[in-house]
């Protein structure tokens, strides 16, 4: 199996970026994938969002704010507690796989999600309560964005919509929003969660070795993607609000 991986890596390296500057799927280095989204698809949840970014599909559900369940010690006197769960759907990769540990509450991905949301959600408005966020999909960045939208859909005030995006470094060029094939070839790279209005970073995670000098362009590429994502989300949000409530 490792052999196969190596072989694929070699295959992709050869042509990750054509001489004419196109990526495998026809995008240029700084372009993000196509985007589709829907809000409020699940009436039983307090808020929900669905995002499709290229072939990545994510559903996020929000319950709350509501009373803290379980022991009192979990509640906080001055703010709401965010409880996040992130799961990768079994059918989210090229091969169907069994759910593994490390994906539930408290897992690495859930922590990333929580950290990003905490920076945006105005939790102090809801002391002694909890907000449950479930994000379900194949990619953590898209999952974060979807979760933020679901929070928005639930009517919970946010400082800003969190836009999360990634970038990878291929042959010296930073690629915004890498797709599956690109990630398989050069590794996951850098993930950002950005609050676009203020430009604040809610989260930066580096999962590959990126040389110091290249860090800036890679960050820039990821942030570019986030901002592009924000513009598209903004358009879509306004459109869907018009659909639901008429003129805004």
């Amino acid at each position, binding site marked *: 199996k490792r052999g196969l991986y*190596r072989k694929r890596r070699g295959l992709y390296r*050869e042509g990750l970026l054509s001489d*004419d500057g196109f990526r495998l799927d026809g995008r240029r280095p700084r372009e993000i994938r196509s985007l589709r989204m829907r809000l409020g698809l699940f009436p039983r949840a307090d808020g929900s969002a669905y995002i499709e970014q*290229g072939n990545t599909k994510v559903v996020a559900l929000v319950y709350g704010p509501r009373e803290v369940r379980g022991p009192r010690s979990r509640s906080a006197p001055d703010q709401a507690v965010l409880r996040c769960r992130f799961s990768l759907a079994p059918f989210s990769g090229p091969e169907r796989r069994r759910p593994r540990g490390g994906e539930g509450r408290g897992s690495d991905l859930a922590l990333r999600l929580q950290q990003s949301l905490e920076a945006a959600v105005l939790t102090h408005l809801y002391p002694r309560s909890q907000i449950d966020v479930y994000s379900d999909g194949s990619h953590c960045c898209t999952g974060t964005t979807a979760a933020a939208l679901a929070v928005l859909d639930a009517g919970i005030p946010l400082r800003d919509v969190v836009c999360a995006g990634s970038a990878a470094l291929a042959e010296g060029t930073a690629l915004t929003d890498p*797709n599956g094939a690109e990630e398989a070839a050069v590794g996951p790279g850098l993930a950002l969660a950005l609050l676009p209005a203020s430009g604040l970073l809610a989260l930066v995670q580096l999962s590959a070795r990126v040389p110091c000098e290249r860090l800036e362009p890679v960050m820039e590429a990821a942030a570019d993607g986030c901002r592009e994502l924000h513009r598209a989300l903004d358009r879509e949000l306004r459109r869907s609000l018009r659909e639901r409530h008429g003129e805004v």
Partner: protein
Amino acid sequence: MQTSRTFVKRTRAGAVVKVVREHYLRDDIPCGAAACRRCPLRPDAPAPSLETQPGGAASSLCPGPHYLLPDTNVLLHQIDILEDPVIKNVVVLQTVLQELRNRSIPVYKRIRDVIQTPEKHFYSFTNEHHRETYIEQKKGETSNDRNDRAIRVAVKWYSEHLKKIEDEEKIQVIFLTNDRINKEKALEEGITAYTCEEYIKSLVANPELVDRLACVSDEGKEIESGKVIFPEHIPLSKLQQGIKSGNYLQGTYRASRDNYLEATVWVHGDAEEKEIIIQGLKHLNRAVHEDIVAVELLPKGEWVSLSSVVLQDDGQNEDDIETEEEKENILKTSVSKDMLRPTGKVVGIIKRNWRPLCGMLSKSEIKEARRHLFTPADRRIPRIRIETRQADKLEGQRIIVAIDGWPRNSRYPNGHFVKNLGSAGDKETETEVLLLEHDVPHQPFSQAVLSCLPKMPWSITEQDMKHREDLRHLCICSVDPPGCTDIDDALHCREIENGNIEVGVHIADVSHFIRPGNALDEESVKRGTTVYLCEKRIDMVPELLSSNLCSLRSDVDRLAFSCIWEMNHKAEILKTRFTKSVIKSKASLTYAEAQMRIDSATMNDDITTSLRKLNKLAKIMKKRRIDNGALTLSSPEVRFHMDSETHDPIDLQTKELKETNSMVEEFMLLANISVAQKIHSEFPEFALLRKHPAPPPSNYDILVKAAKSKNLEIKTDSAKALAESLDKAESPTFPYLNTLLRILTTRCMMQAVYFCSGMDNDFHHYGLASPIYTHFTSPIRRYADIIVHRLLAVAIGADDTYPELRDKHKIADMCKNLNYRHKMAQYAQRASVAFHTQLFFKSKGVVNEDAYILFVRKNAIVVLIPKYGLEGTVFFEEKGKPTPRLDYNNEVPSLTVEDTTLCVFDKVKVNIMLDASNIQHQKIQMVLVEPKIRGNDVPANLSTETSSNNEPEKKKRKLRK
């Protein structure tokens, strides 16, 4: 930015998993025509490459302005023509490039180079992502058919699109395809289409191009004409099944050098390699040397043994199959039963390994004939039929021919003429030939490679200074042979406050300029090493780097990789550190200049005093190394030095080694060892190291016996014992004996090789008596050093890593290639010396010289002529003459010819002359003059016979035994 695009997703069903990939279609991809105003141009995009008024050769088929659009097969087979400067303005589709990459990486790389050459005006059009030229695969359509259709759609789009250009003269697009069906379909769709042949033949002003057309026969056509000679090849899919089930064996085909009807196949096995004999034209079944083939074993009753017959294919009449069979029978009669070996026949070809071949034309005897046979210089390659109208011009020239195919009804493979190298025997021509024959990449660096070079004027930027120490204040100098332009290394030495000595070795920081994975890096790794020929140097990296930016010249700022030690006065290392640095060398000295400074008592400047300190330390280090058992085989170097004008050997240059030579060498060795330790401790799995295995004891037999015959004892149980006994092996009456013994010793040694630390256990370097070693000090001329620099840079956090650097299999593969390149470079160098030796003896005529016997063989002796540093073989068996009585004694290496006994180290006199009877294979011939041997009539005064203009090769007997 994205609003103007529409998206379509494409699903590809793979064999194992379903892979869904996004596929974006765009409408911002330009057509590449300079005259087009409709296509959007990005501000950072290069200027459109297709000319407004397409230049290039005039065609009688389409006199108007036009662009060419070839399909995949045309690119694949006719790349030699497409590279010609007269072919310009060509559109290369993405579909075509992708197909090409899957079918031939070398051709793919060549076409990419062409696309990047501005004068060629080639344009690569990303048709698969263009909204109007992308098509989906239909149900039931093969991907080949789909791609053909995609190409036609793109041609159609181009012709429509170009019509919209508002210019007086419309530019046409011409589709080139050799596929009959594809061409018919194209014509139906209203596309102007020609075969490559039709188009090239229409270029009336350039008739010479026609010769270079590859003759690719249509598969259907070959059966119609002529008698079928060979059995059919089994298709690849069936071969693979057969190999899996064990019916067939896969192996590398190796043709015999001496017998064109015989070959062996080395079977690639898991455990051990096995050899299978293939005999007879039909069993060889059109396999060519180095091809990967599938073989079926014959029943045991049909097994044969390798024949010792020399057979050369020199018939002119191709249809003369009967005589072939006659010859095959000759092979069979010479079989002795207990020598039978597995024998088989080639049933199919798994991979052709055809490369362009050097050789000469054997002009057809028929007047005005256009078909001729080509005889490759490499005897293992069959003769090739080519079509040319310039046979008269090409006769006596060295030419290059490429093989195109080998149909079943053809005695010889078909090929096409590629290039004329020049007259045979000409210096430049022969140099080119020996470079090609030794697979030394020597083309000028391509545009793509040169574009990776820094822009001039170059200066050190602030960015460059990151992770770098400024060592410009240090008193650094370099010591090299005179005339050296590629200075890799420089040194410094100073006393520090605590009384200890700081010594620095500074190596050119080549890896700063050659970044992993770019075209320059790919080219350098392909070359592997700089190759030094007698009158020529083939650089591994472009001259701007080798002789300027990387060369540590004096009085300029240069980037370096420094290895700095703190030592005490006993030359013991107390501390070692490595850093990237900037240096400014204070002086570039020659060995002689440095020696003079050290020796002259009046000079006491900074440079001189540090040289003296270095020299003192080096002496201590060298002594310690030799005490540990390092070998010093640097016998007075006997090398043939030629005057470039007159080809006179500038005497036997016993290269006088000055102290400063070994001073520099000592510190380079130390740097290499220190770096090897560092990278191995940091990256135990994938450090690139160099080892020199100890030779198996039996290797020394010949040396020990030879010494014993002179009553000397050579001990070989350890390197140290060997070194000591060699030092003692002196004879007062025979001063040259020690040199001869050292020469013999070098012949017993193994080859030192690069290897990956994670793939090997034995790291020992026998010759240097070091437990670990690598190459760090010559990155300008050795690629291995560049990798070592990268590893070291990562280890100290001065540079980035990349996936291939951390992959031990990749490093091991690279070592294999580098070892091959170094070996080939060495062979090329020897061939170059041999050629110049021939030139020398051609002008000098026949001479008699003193020689010493180095080796004794069963039917020959190998002699060394000290005057020229030349080695040669004297044979006692001659074709067509009765063999004298030979008696070989293995114990005292000696050979008795008739009544004369010849022992190793005997002083003899030989007659040397050039044997030019075969113009492709000229060689130096040596005949024993003294002692005289009965029956071996050497004409008393050979000098009268100035050259051995024997009868031409052709007229010699066809069959020799």
